[in-house]
Structure formats: C-alpha cells, structure tokens
C-alpha cells in the first residue's frame, strides 16, 4: 500500500519534471525566435552593430589566418639545424672521409655525410643551369663539403654556436655555415607576429564585449515598459534576461558569420596574385582558408563574447529597473 503510494508519487514527480523540462525548452525556443524578431524589427541598427562587430572579428581572424599562412609556408621548409663544413681546397677526398667518420663519433652530432667536390659539381650542373659554362673550366672550383646534423634534441642555439666555433678550429676546415639561419630569423618573426595577433585579438575582444554590452543596454532601455509589466505579471529575472541574452547570441553568431565571409573573400582576392608569384618561383602555394575547427572556434568565441557582453549589462540594468 505504502509502496504503491511512493511509486505514484515518483511517477508524478517524473511527469512533473518532464513537463518542466518541456516548458523550459519552449521558453528558450520562444526567446531565441522572439529575440531575432526584436532585432529584425530595427534592421538598420542591427545591421550597423553587426557590421562593426564583424569587422572587428574579421580583423583579428584575418591576421590570425595571415600568420597561419606564412607559418604554413615556412613550416614546409626543412627547419633542421644542418651545418655545412667547407674544407680547404688542398684537403683530399681521403682526408675528408676520415674527418667525416671522426665527426660522426662526436656525441653532439647525430649525422655527418661527406659530399665530394665531384658530387657537388654534378649536382650544381644539374640544378643551376650553368652546366655548359662549367664544362669550359678545367678545374673543379668546388671544395669538399661535410654536412653535419647536430643532435637537435640535446642542443640549444648556444651549444650549436659552440659546436660551430669548434668545427671552425679544425685545420682541414675552410669555413662553416649554418644553412638555415634566415629561416630561424623568419620563425622568430612569425612568433612575434603570433604574439601580436594574440594581443590584437584580446583588445578587439574587449571592444566587441563593450559594443554588444552597450547595444543590449539601449535595447533594454527601449523595452523598459515591457520589462516592468512582465515583472508585474510574475516574470522571473531569468525570463526577462533570456531574450536579451539571445540578442547577444544573435549578434555574436551573425558577426562571426559575416567575419568568416569577409576574411574568406579577402583570401580569395589574395589567392590569384599569389599563384602568379609562386608560379614565377616554380613553386606552388595554396592559401589556407578557415578549417572547420577554426570556423567553430570563431563562432564560439564570437557568440561567447556577445552573450557575455549582454550578461554583464543585464546583471546591472535589471537590478536598476527593479529599484525604480
């Protein structure tokens, strides 16, 4: 007897909860649609604010993609710390090979390979297009070269420099060159640019936060009567906040969508002249557009900022409306 009572009670509770969840869903759907309706009722304001937000977003996202593109380009290049050791002209192939073996035993060097002057000449003929000119020359002007790959994991830039200095001291060596110094510098610059993008993004995000906040504040003031009447007929603060939070949501969503289109258009405009440029260098470089993940990130950040901006203002303003 008692047990069945508990059961029905449970059942009622479940049903009640189900109804509540459904009602909650209905409320949210209403707020989602009605807030969009509210925005569209004032299309000029909506379009202007959304555009401002979109431009701010596009600026940050555009810089981000630009840097990402340059990074992709340099990433494709071999970024090893390869060192070329040019040997004195009088050093024979035998001596060179001996030195190479000695270097491979060095703990700081992971790999050392010998390129004889003949090999070098063949390669040069093949790639430089000066083949016929070289035919004319009696002597091979090229030295023997040893290519050394330092133990990259254990060595930082300082110890690589030390290694180079030590290599230079060897009697057979003419001079030593780190092949990719320029690449290292470029990468450092990209890192700087990345930091710049981050700072710019934070500043623009703050801007977006304040713009949405201010827009929602005006929206709130326009619907002051509505809010007061809704409060009098028993609207909870949550009910009153909801449509405005969704306004923030829509601003974020639409700004992100417009920014996405803007940046993609800009990249499309760049693609063609870039193709021409890389064509001249016999290379090929495809511009990288937003990935799916980045698109999602853009949407989420933008919506997050919109809703947060709205929330900050709502929190303060509704308190103020209540006290009137």
């Amino acid at each position, binding site marked *: 007897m008692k047990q069945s009572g508990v059961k029905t009670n449970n059942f009622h509770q479940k049903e009640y909860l189900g109804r509540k969840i459904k*009602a*909650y869903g209905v409320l949210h759907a209403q707020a989602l649609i009605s807030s969009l309706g509210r925005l569209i009722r004032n299309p000029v304001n909506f379009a202007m604010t959304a555009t401002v937000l979109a431009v701010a977003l596009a600026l940050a996202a555009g810089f981000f993609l630009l840097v990402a593109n340059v990074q992709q380009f340099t990433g494709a290049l071999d970024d090893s710390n390869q060192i070329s050791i040019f040997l004195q002209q009088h050093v024979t192939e035998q001596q060179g090979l001996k030195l190479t073996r000695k270097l491979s035993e060095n703990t700081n060097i992971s790999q050392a390979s010998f390129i004889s002057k003949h090999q070098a000449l063949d390669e040069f003929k093949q790639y430089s297009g000066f083949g016929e000119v070289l035919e004319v020359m009696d002597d091979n002007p090229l030295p023997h070269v040893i290519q050394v790959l330092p133990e990259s994991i254990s060595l930082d830039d300082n110890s690589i420099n030390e290694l180079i200095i030590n290599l230079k001291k060897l009697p057979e060596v003419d001079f030593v060159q780190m092949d990719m110094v320029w690449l290292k510098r470029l990468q450092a610059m990209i890192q700087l640019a990345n930091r710049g993008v981050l700072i710019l993004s934070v500043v623009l995000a703050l801007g977006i936060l304040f713009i949405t906040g201010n827009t929602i504040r005006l929206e709130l003031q326009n619907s002051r*009567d509505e809010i007061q009447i*809704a409060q*009098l*007929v*028993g*609207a909870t603060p949550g*009910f009153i906040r909801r449509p405005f939070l969704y306004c923030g949501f829509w601003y974020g969503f639409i700004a992100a969508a417009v920014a996405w289109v803007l940046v993609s258009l800009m990249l499309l405009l760049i693609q063609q002249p870039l193709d021409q440029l890389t064509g001249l260098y016999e290379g090929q470089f495809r511009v990288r557009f937003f990935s799916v993940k980045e698109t999602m990130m853009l949407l989420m950040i933008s919506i997050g900022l919109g809703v947060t901006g709205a929330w900050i203002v709502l929190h303060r303003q509704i308190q103020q409306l209540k006290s009137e």
Partner: protein
Amino acid sequence: MLKFDRVFKRYPEGGDALIDISFQLQKAEMVFLTGHSGAGKSTLLKLIAMMERCTRGQLVFEGQNLNHLKEKQIPFVRRQLGLIFQDYKLLYNRTVFDNIALPLVVSGFGYQEIVRRVRAVLEQVGLSGKEKKYPLALSGGEQQRVGIARAVINKPKLILADEPTGNLDPELSDEIMSLFGRFQQVGVTILIASHDYALVEKFHTRVLHLDHGRLVEDWHETERS
C-alpha cells in the same frame, strides 16, 4: 486569505505612508479601498504585490508571510495575483492577444493552452474577435477590459485594482464593476482602490477607508445601509 497585521511603511525620504494597518480579506470578498490621494492606497496595493516591502508588521497572503519571502520567490507570488491599473499598462506595440497572453507566456504555458485560455477570457470580458487589434485601436473601456483580461487569465486568487475606473465615464465604470462582480462570484477576492465615492456608494460591499496612512474606517456591507 490576506491578512495585514500592524503593518507600517515608511519611505526614507517621504515619511510614513502607512501606519499601523490591520485587516483581513476573506475568499470571494469584494472590498473597496478609499481615501484621498496620497492616503496610502497605492502603497498598500504595492505591498501586497511585493513592489514594496513593509517596514514593520506582518503581511500574510494565502498562508505565506510575504515579509519572509526571498527575492526570487516574488514572481511566483505575483502569479497568484491579478493587477489592474488606472493607466491600463498595456504594451502598445503588441496585439490584444499578446497582451493578454503575457502572464501565461511568462509562466511557461504551451501555445495551445494559451490560445484556449485567451479565447475564453476574451469572451468573458466581451472582446471576442478583437485579439488581433492593437490597444490604441480600442476605446478606453475596451483597453481596460484588456487589462482585466490579462489580470484574470492566470486564474488569480486575488485581484488588485488601482483606480480601475479612474479614466472611464460612469457608464463604462459600471460595466467594469459588473465584470468584477462576476469574478467575485467564482471565488476571486477583489480589492479595488478608488476615490470615486459615487461608485463606491452604488455597491453595498465592504469599504476600507484610509486617511493619511491610517486605516480609519472598516465598514462591512451589513453596517452600511
């Protein structure tokens, strides 16, 4: 169902608005609240609607002590009340339907239930067929009936009307009052603030009279003939 027990209300800047008010309302009672302007009628209604809190005393509505109510419980008390205002307080950019449906929307009713109830209440107040109109297209009397429809759609236990006929001519006032009479008959308690003594005289109901914040008279209908 409503009990004031030695209630005081003092505004920090405006002095005493209500002084030592005690009375009770029973279920299905219709009561007038009279007094000169500034006597504290509106303040008294605001205390019940939780738009203000009293400074001292006890205020009990349907067994709940309103003084002890938390801020977030206020909306749920208001859903048991129907508020009617002299200036109707309608939303002029919304249709009659939307205006009347507001309390249900706020409480999370489904659309079908809302439509059903709005139709029913429109018929009750005699505004059938006008749900798609905007309030400004209606006469004053009709606008107040929209206000009443909005107040009763939540099936409130207590209706608070602040000068509901203040902007209406006597004929329309009678209409509104007879509407209140019908709600009273189905068990709703109605508290009407009014300084229209001619109107009050017409109805042989209980009258609470305020003077400078004090409840100076409490006539029951039997005492009034």
